[in-house]
C-alpha cells in the first residue's frame, strides 16, 4: 500500500463527483460551467499522470497506486480499494481521455437544462474512473452502476427520436446484464471462500485452490452472458444501436467508448484468469456468436443503415465481435489484442459520435441519403471523419490496427475458418465506412440539402469543436504509431502467466 497523500486514482473519482455535488447544490450557471471544466479536466490530467508514472512506481501484488479505505463493510470483505494493473491502466487512461472530450463537447452543446446535464455527465465520469480503478469487486460493480444510471436518465431526457422507448429498453437490458454478472461475481466470491472480495485475494486463493471445473463453467456462463449483454453480444445487442441512436452525443461517447468496455474488462480481468477451466467449454460458442452474429450478421445490418448515428451504433456492435473473438481464444495473445482494441475502439467510436453531431449541426439531418458534398464547405470536418473511419476500419497507423491484427493472429491458432470470416468482416466495415464518408462529404448535394444549405451555408469546424476531436484522433495516431506506449504495461500482466499461452 502506498501512503503517499497524493492519490491520483481517488482524485480522478472524487473530483467530478465533488463538482457534480457543487452544481447540484445550486451553483449559478456561469460558475457551474467553469467548474465543470475543472471536473472534466482533473480525471484527464490524473489519467495522464497515471500513464506517465505507471512503469516507474512500485507495484504491490501487481497493482500500482494501490490504496485502501474502509467504508464500513470490511466485515464482508468490502473496502474501497483502488489500484491499476497493466490491463486497467490503459482503460483508466481511455476513460480520462474520452471523458475530457465528451465533457468539452457537452459544455459547448448548449443543451436545455445544461447544469443538470453536466451534473449527470460528471457523475457518469466519476463512475467510469472508479470502475477501472477498483480492485474490490463490489466497487467495480458499484462504480459501473453509478455510471450506468445517469446514462438512462440522459437518454430519456436529452435524447433524440424514440428517447423514452430507447431509455426503457436500455435500462431493462442492461439491468438484466448487470444482475447476471453481479450474481457471477458473488458466486466466485462465495465459492472461493476468500475473506476479501477483491481481485488480489481471489486470484491468490483460486491459484492455490481452483474451483471444480463444473462450477467454474457455470460461473463463467453467468459472467459471459451477464457481461455479454452489457457489451452487446449478438443476439442480445438490440439495445445498443437504438440507445446510441437516441442518446445525446456526450452520453453516447462515454457509453459506447468507455462504459461498454466494462463487460470485456470484467471477462478479461476476472472471468478468464479466475476461471481458466470454465472458459474452455464456452470458447467455441462465444467465438461462433462473435463471428457469425456480431461480425457477419450485424456487419450486414450495418451496411443497410441510412442514419449516421444508427450506422455508428451498429458498427460498434460489430467491432465488439472482434473483442469477443479475442476473449474466446482465451490466450495471452488474444487478451492483449482485446485490450488494445478496447482502447482503440473506445477512442474511434467516441470520435465518430462526436463528428456525427458536428455533421448534424450543419445538415440538420442524419439521413445519409439527404446529404452530400459537405466536404466543400467543411473540409476539416471531412478530414476528421475520414480519418476516424479509417481508424474504425483498422488501417495501419491507427491504434485499431494493432488490436485487430493481434486478435487475428491469436484466432488463427484457435480456428482457421472463423478467422477467415472475421477478416472478411473488415471488408464489410470498409464498405459501410467509406460509403458513409462518400455519401456525406463527397458527390453532389441532394436537392433538399442544397436548398437548406443555400440559405445558410454550413461552416467548418471551429477551434472549440476541433479540440475534443483532436484529442481523440491524436491518441488514436499516437497509439497507432507507438503501440508500446500501452502494450508494455499490458505485457507486464500477460507475462505473469495467468492466461494460457496456447
Amino acid at each position: 500500500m502506498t501512503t503517499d497523500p497524493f492519490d491520483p486514482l481517488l482524485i480522478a473519482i472524487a473530483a467530478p463527483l465533488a463538482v457534480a455535488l457543487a452544481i447540484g447544490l445550486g451553483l449559478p450557471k456561469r460558475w457551474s460551467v467553469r467548474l465543470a471544466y475543472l471536473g472534466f479536466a482533473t480525471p484527464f490530467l490524473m489519467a495522464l499522470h497515471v500513464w506517465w508514472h505507471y512503469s516507474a512506481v512500485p507495484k504491490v501484488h501487481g497493482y500500482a497506486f494501490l490504496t485502501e479505505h474502509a467504508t464500513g463493510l470490511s466485515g464482508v470483505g468490502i473496502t474501497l480499494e483502488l489500484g491499476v494493473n497493466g490491463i486497467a491502466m490503459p482503460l483508466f487512461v481511455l476513460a480520462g481521455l474520452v471523458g475530457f472530450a465528451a465533457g468539452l463537447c457537452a459544455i459547448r452543446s448548449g443543451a436545455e437544462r445544461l447544469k443538470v446535464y453536466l451534473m449527470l455527465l460528471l457523475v457518469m465520469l466519476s463512475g467510469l474512473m472508479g470502475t477501472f480503478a477498483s480492485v474490490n469487486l463490489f466497487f467495480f460493480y458499484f462504480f459501473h452502476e453509478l455510471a450506468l444510471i445517469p446514462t438512462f436518465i440522459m437518454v430519456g431526457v436529452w435524447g433524440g427520436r424514440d428517447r423514452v422507448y430507447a431509455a426503457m429498453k436500455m435500462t431493462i437490458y442492461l439491468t438484466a446484464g448487470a444482475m447476471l454478472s453481479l450474481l457471477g461475481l458473488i458466486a466466485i466470491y462465495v465459492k472461493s471462500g476468500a475473506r476479501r472480495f477483491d481481485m488480489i485475494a481471489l486470484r491468490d486463493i483460486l491459484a492455490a485452490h481452483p474451483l471444480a471445473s463444473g462450477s467454474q463453467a457455470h460461473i463463467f456462463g453467468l459472467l459471459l452472458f451477464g457481461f455479454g449483454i452489457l457489451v452487446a453480444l449478438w443476439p442480445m445487442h438490440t439495445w445498443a444501436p437504438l440507445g446510441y441512436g437516441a442518446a445525446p452525443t456526450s452520453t453516447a461517447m462515454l457509453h459506447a467508448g468507455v462504459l461498454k468496455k466494462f463487460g470485456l474488462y470484467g471477462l478479461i480481468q476476472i472471468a478468464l484468469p479466475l476461471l481458466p477451466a470454465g472458459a474452455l467449454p464456452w470458447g467455441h460458442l462465444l467465438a461462433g456468436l462473435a463471428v457469425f452474429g456480431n461480425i457477419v450478421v450485424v456487419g450486414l445490418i450495418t451496411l443497410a443503415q441510412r442514419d449516421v448515428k444508427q450506422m455508428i451504433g451498429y458498427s460498434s456492435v460489430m467491432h465488439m465481435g472482434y473483442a469477443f473473438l479475442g476473449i474466446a481464444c482465451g490466450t495471452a495473445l488474444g487478451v492483449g489484442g482485446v485490450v488494445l482494441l478496447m482502447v482503440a475502439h473506445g477512442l474511434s467510436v467516441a470520435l465518430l459520435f462526436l463528428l456525427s453531431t458536428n455533421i448534424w449541426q450543419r445538415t440538420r439531418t442524419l439521413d445519409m441519403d439527404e446529404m452530400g458534398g459537405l466536404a466543400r464547405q467543411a473540409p476539416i470536418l471531412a478530414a476528421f471523419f475520414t480519418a476516424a473511419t479509417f481508424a474504425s476500419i483498422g488501417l495501419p497507423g491507427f491504434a485499431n490496427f494493432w488490436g485487430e491484427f493481434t486478435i487475428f493472429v491469436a484466432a488463427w491458432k484457435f480456428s482457421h475458418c472463423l478467422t477467415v470470416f472475421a477478416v472478411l468482416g473488415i471488408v464489410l466495415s470498409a464498405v459501410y465506412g467509406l460509403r458513409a464518408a462518400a455519401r456525406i462529404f463527397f458527390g453532389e448535394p441532394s436537392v433538399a440539402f442544397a436548398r437548406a444549405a443555400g440559405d445558410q451555408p454550413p461552416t467548418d469546424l471551429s477551434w472549440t469543436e476541433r479540440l475534443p476531436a483532436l484529442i481523440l484522433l491524436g491518441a488514436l495516431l499516437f497509439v497507432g504509431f507507438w503501440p508500446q506506449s500501452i502494450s508494455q504495461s499490458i505485457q507486464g500482466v500477460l507475462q505473469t502467466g495467468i492466461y494460457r499461452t496456447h
Partner: protein
Amino acid sequence: MDLSALQNIAAGNDWGAIWPEISLGCLALALLILEIVLPRKSHGRIPALAIAGQVAILVVLGLTFCGGGPDREIFNGLLRHSTGGQVMRVFFLVSSIFACVLGQVTLARQTAPRVEFNTIILTVSAALMLLVQSNHFLMLFVSLETVTVGFYILVSYFRTSSLTLEAGLKYLIMGALSSGLLLFGIALLYGVAGNRLLPGHTAESLRYGPLAAFLAANPHNYVASIGIVLVLSGIAFKIGAFPFQIWIPDVYQGAPTPVTALLAVASKGAGFVVLLTLVRTVLAPYAWLVVPALSGMAAATILFGNLAALTQHNVKRLIGLSGVSHAGFLLMGVVAAASTPLAVGAVYFYLFAYLLASFAVFGVMAHLAGANDADQETSDYAGLAKDNPFLGAVLAVGLGSLAGIPPLAGFVGKFLVFVAAFRAGLYGLLAVAIAGVVISIYYYFGWIKAAYFAPDSPPAGDRPARTPVGLAAKLMLGGFALASVILGLYQGPIGRWLAW
C-alpha cells in the same frame, strides 16, 4: 405460591429497560388528556406536541444506546433485551414520527379528528417495540393484537370514503383470520410441548427457550409441524407474503397514506424481525420444514409482487405490490439466516434501507394526493421534476433505492442479502430474485418516467392540487433521501454494528 416466589417475579421486572415503551404510552395518554383539558381552538397544536415528544424519546434513546452487550431476558423471560431490539426501537420511532408528520399533511384535507390519530399511532409504535422484543408467545400475541387493533382503526380512519371502509373491512377480516391461525398454531405448540409422554416436555412451553429445547428433542413431531406451519402462516399474513398477500393492494389503496406507510414499513419490519428471531431460535430444529416452506413462499412472493405491479397505475397499489416483492427479498434473507449468520445483519440493513426509501416515496405521495386519498395515479406525477425539483429528487432517490440502484442504500441491502443467500446455497431462489429485480425496474422506471420524462405537467384541473412542502416534512424527506445516499456510499458504524 408463597411470597418469595412473587418477590422473585417482581425482581425480574426490569421496568427501566422498557422506558421508551412506557414513555410512548404516557405520551399517548397525555395527548388524550390534553384534548379534554385544552380549549378546542388550541387542539391544532397537539399533534406537534406528539411529534416533539417522540423526537425527544428518539434523542434520549440515541444518547443512551448501549450496543454490543449480551442479550438478557427480562420480565421473567417475557421479553428479551438485545441490541437488535434497541435498534428496532429506533426503526419504529422514526416510523411513527414520520406517520405523525405525514398525518398533518393528509388530515389537513380531511374532516376526520386529528388528535386520536396520533394517540393510536403512538400506541401502535409502543406495541411494535414490545413485539420485536418478545421472548414468549403470550407476549408476542398480546403485542401483536395491540398493533393489529390499532391498525383496524387507522386503516378505516377516513370514514366517509367507501374505498377506505372497504379497506378497513378487508383488513379486519384478514387480520382476524391471521390472528386466529397464529393463535391456533401457538396453542398446538403449547399443547404438544406440555405433553408429558414426550421427551423434553416442559411446563413453560410458551417461552422461546424451553420450547426450542423441546423441539430440538422432538425434531419430527407431527403436531408441532402443523403448529409451526400455522404460526408461519399467521406471520406471513402480516408481512404480506404469498399466498397471504391478497389483502395488500386494496388495503394499501384505501388506507390513509400515512397509515399505508406505517403498515408497509413498521408492521412489515416487525413481522420480519419476529420471523427472524423465530427461525434462528425456536424453529431452528425444524429447519427441514421451515426452510423449504419459506423458500417457496419467498420465490412466489417475489414473482407475484413484481408481476402484479407491472400493470398498476394507481401508485398506492403499486407501492403495495412492490412492497410484496420486497417482502420476498427479505424472506430470502430470513431463509438464508437459518444457516448463515451474515444474513441477520443483511436483513436488518435491508429493513433500514427499505424504511428510508419507502418513506421518501410515501412522503412525496402524501404531498401529491388530493382530497380523494385513495385515487393517486402515476399520471398525476407528470412534470413533477420541473414544478417541484425537491419532491422530484426525493422521489427519484426513493424509487431508485427501492429498485436497488447504486449508490443508494437499497443496493447495498440487496447485495448483502444476495451474498447471504449464496452462502446459504439458495441458487434457485437467487435466480428468481434476479428476474424479479429486472422486472421491477420496469415499473419503478415507469413511475420515474412520469415524473421526469413526461414533457409537461397536466393542466391543474386534471390532477389534484399539490400540497406545498412544510418545514418538518421537508426536513424528514430530505433526511431520508440523504440518508439513502450516504448509507449507500458509507455504511461506517452501522456496518460495524452489524458485525459480520
